[in-house]
């Protein structure tokens, strides 16, 4: 989402001659997954925002979910245009908050010109705190034209609140960890079929396993593992010939071979009689 977040440190680190911190971090898929996980977009009422708990100056959380970006719908009750920035106050019926919109690009100025005093608007921004006072740094704002949007926004606030409190209750706190849905825990299986846990409500893409993003073989490996983990194959000492796997699953033998090679180096399968027959390492 275009948030206008220009990370000066990352862009200029190394003077452009060395790979910056940001690019090396981007290659580490699990770190970028964590960043993606933390980027939440929460629709909130201003009452919820004022009640958000904080640990330190700029870390807020509501219902156990870290606040990154917020969506607010309310009326502009005060507005002051100072050319490079616009200071305004948004009142959504549950409270009011000071907002600031920095206008340095033409597109930003035009966006603000469409917004007038007394109008209902939808805005997205980051929450800031200064000397105990909370305000919103707005990066996206537009007038509300269909007023069903107001009803929708508050309904969504209630839904998200309920989702984050009731549905996530009992699972491990920080989004991204699995809950054991079955009675027998299988912690060693990276390609397990355990269903993913309820994640905090967020509008970005989210993946359970970091390997999925860069791994085109993931689907095939998963299918092969599910096949080899069937009880009749787990008990058979000789294992299963990989051509039989290919025939039963209707996957090209070459793909099955490739999948099995990767699974074998990950320690999920091992060869039995010779290097064409394989067994899952589960319960081995």
């Amino acid at each position, binding site marked *: 989402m275009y948030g206008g977040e220009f990370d000066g440190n990352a862009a200029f680190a190394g003077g452009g001659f060395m790979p910056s911190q940001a690019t090396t971090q981007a290659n580490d898929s699990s770190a970028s997954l964590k960043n993606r996980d933390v980027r939440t977009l929460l629709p909130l*009422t201003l*009452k919820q925002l*004022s009640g958000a708990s904080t640990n330190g100056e700029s870390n807020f959380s509501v219902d156990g979910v870290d606040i990154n970006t917020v969506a607010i719908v309310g009326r502009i009750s005060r507005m002051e245009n100072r050319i490079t920035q616009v200071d305004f106050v948004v009142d959504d*019926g549950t*409270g*009011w*908050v000071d907002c600031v919109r920095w206008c340095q690009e033409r597109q930003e100025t035009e966006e603000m010109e469409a917004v007038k005093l007394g109008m209902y608007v939808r805005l997205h921004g980051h929450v800031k705190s200064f000397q105990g006072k909370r305000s919103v740094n707005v990066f996206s704002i537009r007038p509300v034209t*269909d007023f*069903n949007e107001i*009803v929708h926004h508050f309904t969504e606030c209630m839904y998200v609140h309920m989702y984050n409190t009731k549905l996530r209750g009992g699972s491990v706190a920080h989004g991204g960890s699995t809950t054991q849905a079955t009675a027998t825990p299988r912690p060693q299986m990276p390609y397990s079929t355990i269903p993913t846990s309820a994640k905090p409500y967020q509008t970005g893409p989210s993946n359970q396993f970091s390997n999925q993003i860069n791994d085109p073989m993931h689907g095939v490996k998963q299918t092969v593992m599910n096949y080899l983990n069937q009880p009749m194959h787990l008990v058979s000492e000789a294992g299963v010939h990989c051509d039989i796997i290919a025939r039963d699953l209707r996957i090209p033998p070459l793909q099955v071979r490739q999948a099995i090679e990767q699974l074998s180096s990950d320690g999920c399968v091992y060869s039995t009689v010779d290097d064409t027959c394989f067994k899952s390492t589960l319960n081995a």
Partner: protein
Amino acid sequence: MDTSSPSAFVNGALLRRYIGQKVRTVIQVIGSDTGSVVGKSTDDLQIVVRGPSPTPPLTTYLEVIGIAESDNSIRAETWTNFGNTFDPQNYNELCKLANGEFKHLFI
């Protein structure tokens, strides 16, 4: 940031809970008199709104924010045109939830 003077989402039946306090509701105008407007609330009850009249042109649905004076009248402070395609049943359900199970998110 301040939440000390919220305006409660009300329909006709909930208005009595907030007498003397700031409320907001959506009505459909069914008649007007000098200095007051008679409207139909989202739960089909009559509400009289006194004070400054809304400036025309008016749409079918209007939001009024003001102080509740009795269980069926409001002293208006702000009027907003809410258009002709507004869904009153959704708004009615929102009022019920905002005053019931999810009241802590609003007031």
